[in-house]
């Protein structure tokens, strides 16, 4: 392990995340991991890492970091207007930092979460097979907590690919974060809604409420009536749209509860989850019904975009 970056200011809510701990859901532990996995993967590939390496997930504002030695970094996801030594630098691009360089962010221009990858992969505490931060259990990543001023970011090892500064993921290959229509597949309990409810679910849309975090987003808008016999609790998945008795749907995100008994009327396609990850309270969002086959094609297109970065 070697120290590469010092945290001067941590930003509002910055954590270490990788692709999560899917095996831990059997113990009731949320899978966790990067909310926007496309941006996480792209940042890693641009920094010469394997996609499974950990990155910094920075919510609403970016940190201020100083390079303790020269390193290659890449920023992807939300646009927080990155600068190096006071000069603007492009996102979705490999950036070479020399010792003493300062990486800062001038302010949020769009989106909710930016990802910072460092060649070699961000190091941290491994818990149940993952470096992802779980704040409830206070485990994983930077000792199970948010970054704070004075923290030193180390890298796990060597980058798996040669460091190439200036390599970029083209605009047309990035998710369209401005399009807040989320492709979704009908869920196990869709028939509880009836034709009117179904129209409301896939209709004009909802607003993300203030109750929105890494566990999930409560949505405001048309109330959905999914009443019926009480369901026996079952295992859940990220992207599931639950309808509690209040009728106000909940979109489950990376740190979702692992089991529940509310009807699930739809599940957001995995290829649309990066867009969902960039939503903020007050944003409008709608669901567009797609087939499993359409969701598979969207997924394949995203995979091809990422593969274009693997030489």
């Amino acid at each position: 392990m070697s120290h590469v970056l010092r945290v001067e200011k941590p930003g509002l809510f910055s954590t270490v995340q990788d692709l999560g701990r899917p095996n831990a859901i059997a113990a009731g532990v949320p899978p966790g991991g990067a909310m926007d996995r496309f941006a996480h993967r792209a940042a890693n590939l641009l920094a010469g890492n394997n996609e499974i390496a950990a990155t910094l997930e920075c919510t609403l504002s970016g940190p201020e970091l100083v390079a303790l030695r020269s390193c290659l970094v890449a920023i992807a996801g939300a646009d927080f207007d990155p600068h190096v030594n006071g000069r603007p630098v492009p996102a979705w691009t490999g950036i070479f930092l020399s010792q003493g360089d300062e990486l800062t962010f001038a302010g949020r221009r769009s989106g909710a979460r930016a990802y910072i990858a460092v060649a070699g992969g961000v190091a941290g505490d491994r818990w149940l097979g993952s470096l992802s931060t779980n704040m409830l259990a206070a485990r994983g990543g930077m000792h199970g907590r948010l970054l704070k001023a004075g923290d030193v970011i180390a890298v796990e090892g060597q980058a798996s690919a040669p460091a190439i500064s200036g390599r970029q993921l083209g605009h047309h290959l990035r998710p369209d974060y401005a399009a807040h229509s989320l492709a979704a597949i009908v869920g196990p309990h869709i028939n509880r809604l009836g034709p009117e409810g179904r129209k409301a679910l896939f209709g004009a849309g909802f607003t993300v409420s203030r109750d929105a975090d890494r566990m999930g987003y409560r949505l405001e808008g048309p109330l959905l009536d999914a009443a019926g016999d009480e369901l026996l609790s079952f295992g859940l998945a990220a992207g599931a749209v639950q309808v509690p008795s209040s009728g106000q749907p909940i979109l489950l995100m990376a740190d979702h509860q692992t089991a529940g008994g509310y009807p699930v009327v739809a599940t957001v396609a995995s290829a649309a989850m990066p867009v969902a990850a960039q939503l903020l309270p007050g944003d409008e969002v709608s669901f567009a019904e797609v087939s499993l086959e359409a969701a598979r094609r969207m997924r394949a297109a995203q995979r091809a975009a990422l593969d274009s970065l693997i030489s």
Partner: protein
Amino acid sequence: MPAPLSTTGVQTHPLGDAALLAELGTRLDTALNTRAIALASALKKRRDVRQAVAGYASVTVHFDPDRTTHDALAAAIKRLASKRPPMAEPGRLHRIPVTYDGPDLEAVAEQLGLAAATVAEIHARPIYRVFLIGFVPGWGYLGPLPEELELPRRHVPRTKVPAGSVAIAGRQTGIYPLATPGGWHLIGRTSVKLFLPDSDPPCLFRAGDRVKFFAARA
């Protein structure tokens, strides 16, 4: 005469493009739960399955969409579900001491028309089954709770329930492993740790285990 064990009728539904829900039934039933646990453990051995988690009467399967499709996996699940499940081994037995002095004990007793001591006595009588693990880290859904103690959830959930609270709702009972929000009735507390973050797996209970409560001296 009991109805013969149904081995058909598994229904699969997409849970997005990388997971599915396989429903074996809709009843709170030990035999269905045994089948769900057996099906989950058979599915976990497949290379195209990332994780399979048993619910009360269902299995949620997280799969690798690069290796399989919903339809192919659904067909495999139908085949697996039609096989006779292996003889269920009795799960491990946990004996949990409870101090029956929860903040809702008196109200629960009043609603049920029982003495508080009787509520405690009835709660500690059965050997419960751990139907599933989930909701929050280390939580086990235990049941069936005796009918005499059946109550709907609290109208207004608490924003914070202390860790170790022993609670009931419907035909279920459970122990809050961490301080979390909760809508169940709190009838007691235990010092036994359910969530073990530095063990792997990080929880005391496994699906299929058995739990016996006993009154600890206050």
